[in-house]
């Protein structure tokens, strides 16, 4: 009788130990993943708070009677290096593809974005919007020369 009780107790305790190990392992993994996600979010928040740039110059010139090329000069006035390929450029509300003179847009440095064959004649006025990778956005207007 005593041996039966001991054996049953041992089986239950072992299964309890194994079960607790499962839960502990899962909890540790979840906490690690969540910790990583929170750290990533804090990093994103830091980047957002420290991101700033200005449109330092816009040059637009006619290439045909109805199209023009556009050159946009940006200056990074924040403290975060931005990825040039992840900028979004919208002219009159439409997003266009562009080329850039450098991939990394370092603080206090400049970046040039070039767009070609945009629709518009000489002396036409347009609205420009530039959006950085983390959603920081700037507006300006320009006239085609």
């Amino acid at each position: 009788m005593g041996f039966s009780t001991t054996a049953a107790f041992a089986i239950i305790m072992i299964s309890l130990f194994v079960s607790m190990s499962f839960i502990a392992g899962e909890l540790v993994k979840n906490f690690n993943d969540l910790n990583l996600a929170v750290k990533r979010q804090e990093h994103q928040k830091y980047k957002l708070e420290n991101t700033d740039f200005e449109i330092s110059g816009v040059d637009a010139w006619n290439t045909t009677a109805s199209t023009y090329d556009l050159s946009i000069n940006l200056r990074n006035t924040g403290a975060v290096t931005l990825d040039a390929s992840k900028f979004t450029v919208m002219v009159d509300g439409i997003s266009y593809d562009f080329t850039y003179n450098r991939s990394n847009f370092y603080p206090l440095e400049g970046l040039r974005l070039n767009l070609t064959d945009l629709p518009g004649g000489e002396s036409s006025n347009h609205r420009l919007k530039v959006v950085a990778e983390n959603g920081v956005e700037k507006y300006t207007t320009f006239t085609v020369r």
Partner: protein
Amino acid sequence: MSFGESGVHVIFFVAAVVLATSISAMLVTTVEKVSIGLRVQGENLENKIGTDFKIVNDPVNIPVNNSVSPPEYTFYIKNIGTKSILMTESTLTVLIDGTHISDANLRLDPDGELKPGYLGQIFVRMNLASGDHKVTVILENGFSDSMKFTI
């Protein structure tokens, strides 16, 4: 012929082991379910934390294609989070002035994953009167963004 003392002990022992094993099996099964639940909840929370996006249209210049009927408006969304966003007609909900846009009037580019930092396009076919409107985009995890715009 009757059971001896050792026979009774064997029966008790087997009964105790069977009972303990049953209890253990129930315990392990329950714990496994709890573990799966914890994992799913953890992944959901992790996804929510890493998800962020923004409607980045110029609010006074919403692109429109008037060559189709009804006209097709384009809304740009930028993934500003750390996780890819699943952009499909079944995972994305678009409301214009509070009205849900049906799948038949919705087109997406890309129709799939939108990576962090990249721009996606939502094409909505509907008639909009001149004036102010509001677009709301809701992701599958409930994260949403809204933007007021004018036509």
